[in-house]
Every structure is written in C-alpha cells, then in structure tokens.
C-alpha cells in the first residue's frame, strides 16, 4: 500500500512528467529517423550507433568551441556520416541491412571509446561548461501555469525542436508530394521507378535524415542532459527508439506515443528516492516495457512492403 501511495505521489508531480516528456522527446528523434529511413525501404537499426557518435562529437565540439549550436551541427554531421555509410552499404552495395546496421552500432562504440581515451589521455573528456550546454527555455507567461507550465514550457530547447519536427514530418510524410513518393519507394520501388521517381536519391536522403536526427538526439543527451561524455552513454536508447518505431507502426505520432511510454518508464526509474523499491528494479522498467510492447501489445504491425529489400532496376 505504501508503494501505491508513493507511486501516486510521483505520478501527480510536475517533476515526473517534465522528465518523462524530456526523455520521450529525446527518444522521438531517433525513432523519427527510423520511421523516415524504413518508410523509404531501408531497414535501419543503426540509430544507436549514430546517436552515440553524435553524443561524442557534440562534447568534443562543445569543449573546443564553447558554443552549443556549433556542437549540434558537428553532432548532426557525425550522425549523418555514419548514416551515409549505412546508406552506401545498403543502397549502393545492396548488402544485408541488419548486418550493416549492427556493424555501425559496434563500430560506433569502438570509435567513440577509443577517441575518448585518446583525446583525454585516458582520463575521460571533461564536463561541458555552461557556455557549451544546450539551454533550457522557459516560455514567458506560459511557464507559470501550474503543473502544465512545468511539464510543457520549462524544457530544453531540443524538446521543442523534437515536437516540431514530429509535426513537420507527419505533414510531409502524409500530405505532400515528397512524402507520397518516399512511401511509394518504400512500398514498391519498381512502381516508383517506372513512374519516373528517383528511388536511390530518396532512399539516400531518408537514411541521411535518420543520421542527422539521431546525431541531434546524441547532442541533446550529451550536452543538454548529461553535460559530459561517458563511454557507451546511449546505453540502448537507439534500440528503444527502434522498438518505438515498430510499436508506432512506422508513423511519427505513433512512434512518439511509444516514446512517451518509454519516457514514463525512464522517469519512473529516476524516482528511486521517492518510490521505495530497489533502484535496479525501476531501472529495468523501460526495457521490460520495450519487451512487452514488442512481444504482445503491438499486434499486427506491418512494415513498409519493400523495407529491407535492396532495389535493382530492371529486375533480376
């Protein structure tokens, strides 16, 4: 009973929901990247690696430039570069996209751990000072609304960016010519090609977008939340985003809803001080949620028809 009342106390607190939305919006970026990539027909499990690469380079850039926006650009370029490798392997060489994504995830851990040791002489990179951190924006007036103000209007700037990107992506994907073509390429590339649509260009574009978004998420994590780089600091968030993408049936809003479920899980895990259960149990919650969601709750979730199938013009 004590636990239930503690839980209730957590669930009505503004701190809790503020944290849940922050983590949900963080996860939504790579999840959205996955949606775009897979809607174009390229399976992408490499968000984890692209995010980690982005996190590392954002810290390096923030430490040298003392400017979070430069750091964000560098992080996005780093994530984009990893994505370009995945795109090249998947589209140009028509290799197995799961293997390619997996290789990128492993390579990203190796690369960032090595460079972290190398650049800091094995001490680990320093903490990012406030001049290099992504700012929290309190929206004037609105941030004073009780509860809602704290949850929605006292957030890191990237939270607002993430929500805006979700809305834009949803509009582009389902209401514009570009979105129609992107989905066509992911469903039936031959049909798109014979209609005069450039299959490769759209696929490259979508995969690179997934890298830019994952890199942005990495920057948010490293210089917006943690303010330091730790080896393998993404700790599976890219995979959770992957699960959110599937749970959300390859739609931006669906993926966001799933990300919020995981965000709530994250926030619960952070509430160890209030809820009297072992810390490790709470930290397990997001991952158990991922398993449960993938195994049971999803039901029939059909990926784009050509997802993961390389395209060869003219058949054979």
């Amino acid at each position, binding site marked *: 009973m004590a636990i239930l009342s503690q839980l209730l106390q957590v669930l009505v607190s503004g701190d809790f929901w503020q944290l849940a939305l922050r983590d949900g919006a963080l996860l939504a970026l790579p999840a959205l990247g996955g949606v775009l990539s897979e809607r174009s027909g390229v399976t992408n499990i490499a968000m984890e690696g692209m995010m980690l690469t982005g996190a590392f380079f954002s810290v390096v850039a923030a430490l040298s430039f003392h400017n979070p926006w430069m750091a964000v650009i560098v992080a996005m370029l780093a994530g984009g570069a990893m994505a370009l490798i995945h795109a090249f392997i998947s589209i140009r060489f028509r290799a197995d996209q799961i293997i390619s994504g997996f290789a990128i995830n492993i390579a990203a851990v190796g690369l960032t751990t090595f460079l972290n040791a190398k650049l800091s002489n094995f001490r680990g990179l320093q903490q990012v000072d406030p001049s290099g951190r992504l700012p929290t924006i309190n929206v004037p007036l609105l941030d004073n609304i009780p509860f809602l103000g704290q949850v929605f209007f006292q957030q890191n700037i990237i939270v607002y960016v993430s929500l805006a990107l979700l809305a834009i992506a949803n509009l582009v994907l389902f209401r514009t010519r570009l979105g*129609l*073509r992107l*989905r066509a390429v992911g*469903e039936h590339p*031959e*049909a798109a090609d014979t*209609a*005069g649509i450039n299959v490769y260009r759209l696929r490259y574009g979508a995969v690179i977008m997934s890298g830019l978004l994952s890199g942005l998420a990495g920057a948010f994590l490293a210089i917006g939340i943690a303010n330091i780089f730790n080896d393998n600091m993404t700790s599976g968030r890219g995979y959770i985003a992957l699960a959110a993408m599937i749970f959300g049936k390859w739609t931006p809003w669906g993926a966001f809803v799933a990300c919020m479920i995981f965000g709530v899980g994250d926030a619960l895990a952070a509430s160890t001080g209030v809820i009297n259960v072992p810390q490790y149990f709470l930290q397990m919650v997001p991952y158990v949620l991922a398993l449960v969601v993938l195994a049971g709750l999803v039901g029939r979730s059909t990926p784009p028809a050509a997802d993961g199938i390389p395209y060869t013009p003219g058949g054979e």
Partner: protein
Amino acid sequence: MSTEVRADRPAAPGGEAPYAIEMRHIRKAWPGVVANDDVNLTIRKGEIHALVGENGAGKSTLMNILYGLLKPDAGEILINGQHAHISGPRDAIVRGIGMVHQHFMLIPVFTVGENIVLGREPVENGDFYDRSEVDTRIRALSDEYGLHINPDARTGDLPVGLQQRVEILKVLYRGADILILDEPTGVLTPQETHDLFAVLRGLVRGGKTIIFITHKLKEVLEISDQVTVLRRGKVIGTVRTKDTNEEEIARMMVGREVLLRVDKAPAKPGAAALRVEHLTVNTEQGLPAVRDVSLELYAGEILGVAGVEGNGQSELVAALAGMLKPRSGRIWIGDRDVTEEGARHTRHAGLAHIPEDRRGAGLILSFSIAENTIFGHQRDAAFALRGMVLRLHEIYAWARRLIKQFDVRTPSEETPARALSGGNQQKVIVAREMATQPKVLLASQPTRGVDIGAIEFIHRRIVEQRDAGAAILLVSAELDEIRSLSDRIAVMYEGKIASIEPPDVPEERLGLLMTGGGGRQTHPAAS
C-alpha cells in the same frame, strides 16, 4: 491557328504515316546469353501490334529497352520518326510511351488516385498533394475513355481486372500515345479479357498505338493488326494478322511444326479411383477455401477443374494430396480412406501430384536432377539400402532413364535443378510423378510458364497416362488447356463446384460459371 497545327501533321489519307516506333539493330547481351540480337521492330501509328515468342525469346528485354529500364548494347530507337535517346522511364514517358507491366506496378496500400498520379502529382501551396484536383483529373480521364473507377478506393481491395484498369489509367494520365501491354490477359477471367479488348479497341479509335505482348495465339488473332515473332533473341518475322493463322505463328515461335490440338480418343472411364465426399478445407490461415465438395474421379478420364484462381482449387488439391488436413469430409483412393493420412501414405495408396508451385513444392532447386527424381521414393528399397543409405548408382541410372524418356534437356543428371529452364524443370516433375504409374494423378497448373513445345509434350503425356488407366484431376487457369484435355469440366466458384460440364461447353458459359453466374445446374449426363 489550330487548323494550321493539324495540317502540319502528316496524316494525309493514302500518304505514308510515319511509324510510331522504329527499333533498329537492337542488341542486348548478358554474360552467356544474347537476349536481343540485331532486332528490328517497326510499329505503325494506330495499330495493335502483337509481340509473341516463347519464354526467353527476348520480348520483355526489347520492351524494357524501349521503356528505358534497360540500356541496349547497340542499336537505335526512333519515335514518330525522331531519334530518341531513352536512358530511363522518365525519357520514355516524356516521349509518350507508357507501359502496363505484367506484374502490376501498383502500391496496394495507396488509393487508386495516388497510384495513378504517382510521379506527376498535382500539388497546391508548394508541395501539398492536391486530392480534389486528382479526383477531378481522374474523373475526366475516366469519362474520356470509358474507364470508370473510384479514385478513393484502396487499390489492394480491387479485383485484378480493375487493378489493370488503374494501370491503364496511370499510363493514359501520363499522356501516353503508345501503350505497351506486357502479358495483360494472364491474370484475367474470360469476361475481363473481353472487357479489356473492348477498351483497347476504343483506345485505338482514339488514336493510340498499342504493343501487345502475349503468348496466347488466339488473342493475337483476335485483337492485333500485325504480329512480330521473336525466337531466341531474333526477329523471325512480322506478318499481318489477317494473312496468318495459329499454326503459322506457332511454327515461327518454336521453329518447327507444333501440334496445337491435343489428339485423343474418347475416354473409356472405369471404376471410381478417387472419391471425395462433403469435403471442407480451410486455408493455412484458417479461412474457408473448399466448401462441401463431393466428386468422383474415374480411372481413364481427365476431370478438368476450371475457375478463377483463389476459388479453392489450390486447397482442394492440397487436401487430396495429403498436404492440408480437411476440416470435414472424406477422401477415398480406390476403397482406402486416406482422409487422415499424410502425403507419404497417400502416395503409397497410388496418388501422384504435380504441384502448382514448381519451384517451391515440386523441386529442391539446389539438389541435382537425380536427387529430385526420387523424392517420395527415397525410402524405397530400389533407391536406399534398408531405407537408410542411398544407392547412388541406381539413382543415377534411374534419373538417366527418366531424362531420356521425358526428353529433359540437361547436361547431366547431376546438374542442379536450378540450372534448367522452366519447361525442363517441369518435365523433371512430370517424369517423377508419372514414372510410378499412379492410379490417381493430380496435375495442378502443369504447363504454367512453360513453352509451347514443352506444353505439347506434357499434354501428350497426360493423355497417355489417361489411356493407361490413370484417373487425372487437372487444375488449370488456362481455359484452353482445360477444354482441350478434359473429358469433364468442373467449375469451382467460391469453394464450391458450381457445375460439371461436358468438354465442348461454350467458353462464354464457362466464363459465366467461373464468376458466379449461370445457375448451378449440373450435368450428370456429362459423366
């Protein structure tokens, strides 16, 4: 102004109208194969030009070159007398060429409208898809050509005939004057084919030019003005349809005389070899497929099963072969009840099965021909010591005998099945299934995707089996095949046998029965 423009067009009566398309000295080779060898093709404006040839004759390669999907190694293309460099479908579309592919280039989850306009979408406010404009344009197009369709329907929900209509509209929407149709009737019912031909005639009246790829000779004679025959990558000749006949075209395609009609004596039916009572079968997904079917199949007869694909034929055969467990009903082979037995025991009872899925269920493609010829008999003493150790020497000897008897064109019995052409793969299956002198033979789509020469051969063997006393159940999507081979014809519709007809039943009646019309009176006299 407009009259002047018209006068520019060289369409003077009696004068030589320029050709819509001239393909000159086209060559396309892949390692080991020359798909097109110095091919010349000339298409007149406003004609329906049939392009025929066996599998691998180079028809599709030639059309893919014209449509820009493939680049020729050599040769040139003229469109309306102008040299055209076509390096992609986009170039072909710009020059007024449209292609209706054999496998529809439609996205099932998109609406009809989205599929039609894809690649040339009307937009508003920048890049926003303009649905009302799409609807307006499609409605106008539908009215102009009499091709009515709901632009907001989900494409995947439409029957095949309507999906093809979407494909044709797609091509017209892009302003095509020259339409290439690749095997357009392969998936259609006779009624749908009839409708399609009416549409094509209307398009030609409206000034369009049509290239019609097919292997069905009857359709060539019915719809085309000119016929070009390809064989092994070369043009054998172009003839006026009026001046030719089925036999001549078949001879040009195959390079020798082909017997199109199956020679067979009247059946001498004996005792019932296969009895089915109130059989109900579900698909593997649990949907009802065969509903309360009863039939008797007699020794020495061929019972053809006609029907639009997906009306329970596949599941009926799978149940009879012991591959799918029926929900209810009984199956007897002779007087043995095999309802509960699996494929292995059903075979022992004397049943052989030529499956519809040649590559999936009929052969293991990476295994040798010899290994493929003993499937189902791998435990027999003749091929395995104590049913355990294979007797390779005997197996190879057996395979060599079948290869000879069934005229399988292969370098050796150790060649993997994958390396053979479709026709020769099918001959391996036919050889295996007929070699055991079965009491009951289930032949499912026995000549699908097989060349005319091999079709002739397989048909003759099926009749030989009948005359040797086998009871044969022939399932085929080709009505001509059903009509020429069968002694009785059962029509399946929605899992039931709608009627049993004599072999000389008019095609129109079959077509009607296949689509649920024509009443359900049976003709017991036909048995």
